[in-house]
């Protein structure tokens, strides 16, 4: 198994944010991380990225505890994009990509930036300051930054939040296309169920810090007797039952 999460918990003071979760991610698969706000998705992503120290449990990458890797060794294989995390606003798009390319130690950086800029159609605002861009443009630049190192594991936190349907579709299509051409494992946290159905091989449903269900979209829909993932999500999110 490529990524293994074992008994992972996080307690903030007395608040149990993540409660002994276990899941595995196979190499080159896309896993959706779903759940209502405050269910522990961001904390889980934070723990995988090394931004949050787990209170309990372990994370394994290729059967090796993540703590056994050095910080730069493991982080050079990861990347992350979220509309809630921005790139320096006063720097141009090109400068931001150059800096992150250098931080990730990318060889032939100019070529890499050119390739990714063409793919994501961001060349026409390359010299503009990132803070001056529309949210759709910022999102594409953020995605470009997250792919600059050709990560083996990409964590996406609501990558199409607040985007118009056209740009949202562009981002989803790009992720699909990128995945078909590259070896990449994706953990996608999203509230857009159509997006999850389209991009994810399987999903993990979280609620109150716990995993309440998991499986392929089709299997979950069938199991809960609903007609789509959105209805399944609503059923699980609104249910008082402990699964």
């Amino acid at each position: 198994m490529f990524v293994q999460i074992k008994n992972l918990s996080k307690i903030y003071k007395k608040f149990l944010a993540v409660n002994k979760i276990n899941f595995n991610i196979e190499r080159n698969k896309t896993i959706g991380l779903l759940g209502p706000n405050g269910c522990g998705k961001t904390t889980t992503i934070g723990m995988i990225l090394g931004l949050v120290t787990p209170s309990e449990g372990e994370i394994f990458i290729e059967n090796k505890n993540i703590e056994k890797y050095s910080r730069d060794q493991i982080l050079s294989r990861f990347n992350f994009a979220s509309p809630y995390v921005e790139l320096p606003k006063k720097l141009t798009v090109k400068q931001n990509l150059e800096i992150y390319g250098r931080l990730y130690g990318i060889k032939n950086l100019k070529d890499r930036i050119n390739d990714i800029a063409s793919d994501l159609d961001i060349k026409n605002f390359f010299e503009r300051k990132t803070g001056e861009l529309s949210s759709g443009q910022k999102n594409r630049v953020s995605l470009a930054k997250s792919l600059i190192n050709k990560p083996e594991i990409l964590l996406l936190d609501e990558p199409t939040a607040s985007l118009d349907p056209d740009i949202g579709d562009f981002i989803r299509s790009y992720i699909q296309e990128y995945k078909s051409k590259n070896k990449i494992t994706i953990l996608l946290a999203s509230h857009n169920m159509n997006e999850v159905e389209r991009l994810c091989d399987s999903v993990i449903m979280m609620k109150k810090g716990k995993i309440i269900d998991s499986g392929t979209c089709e299997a979950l829909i069938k199991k809960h007797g609903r007609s789509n993932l959105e209805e399944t999500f609503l059923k699980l999110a609104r249910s008082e039952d402990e699964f």
Partner: protein
Amino acid sequence: MNFNKIIALGLRHLYLIMNSFPRILDLIYWPTVQIFLWGFISKFFTLNSEYYSNTIGIILTAAILYDFLFRASISFNMMFLEEIWSRNFTNLFIAPIKIREIIAALTLTAIIRTLIGLVPAVLIAIPLFGVSVLKLGIPLIFLLISLYLFGITLGLLVTSGLLRYGPSFENIAWASLFFLAPLGCIYYPIEILPETLQIIAKGLPLVHIFEEMRNILMTETVNYLKIFKSILISLFYFIIGVIVFYISYFGAKKRGTLINMGE
């Protein structure tokens, strides 16, 4: 240490300065105002004080050196705050850069930021007030090293507070240097302080730096022992600053503040 990564982080801050003329102007403006203010005060004291009668420019030189310390510390703090303000904090801390490389990058870039502000002000002081810090000669280099180390230390302690308490600690960033200034004996000899405060003041490098600066300008002799003592004290505090920064970083990871910094 990976110097390419240190350069990359340095470039992030240099681009920020180069992209904005008002930002460059802001860097130059405050030191220049300081020089003007202390230049006139210095001129007044030179003409009216027995203590400073034969030593034109002691106060102004002290003001320049203090501003160097102030700018170094503020530069370090500002660069860290920029990451919080721009909501780039998470991106920075998930990049494969070691914490010591972040500290090194901020330390090295702070000197450039400091010099952009201070060099024009220092040059203005020469024709305007006939005062040049270069009169301190070779010891000036060592005095600046000591001041810089201490300035960066204060920056490290403030950024540790930012990591621990979040952006609400920002006000402390601005106040930190003013808190120590009275004990630093920047413009007056240590004997002015009450005896108990003298003991505390001697534990700071500032007293040794500014006492020696006055000694050089007034007696034209150099006590290198005192200068190196100040460097050692600064180095001691710098090491403590680095340790505190690491403790705050690991504490922030425990509290989860790294993922929502800036919100």
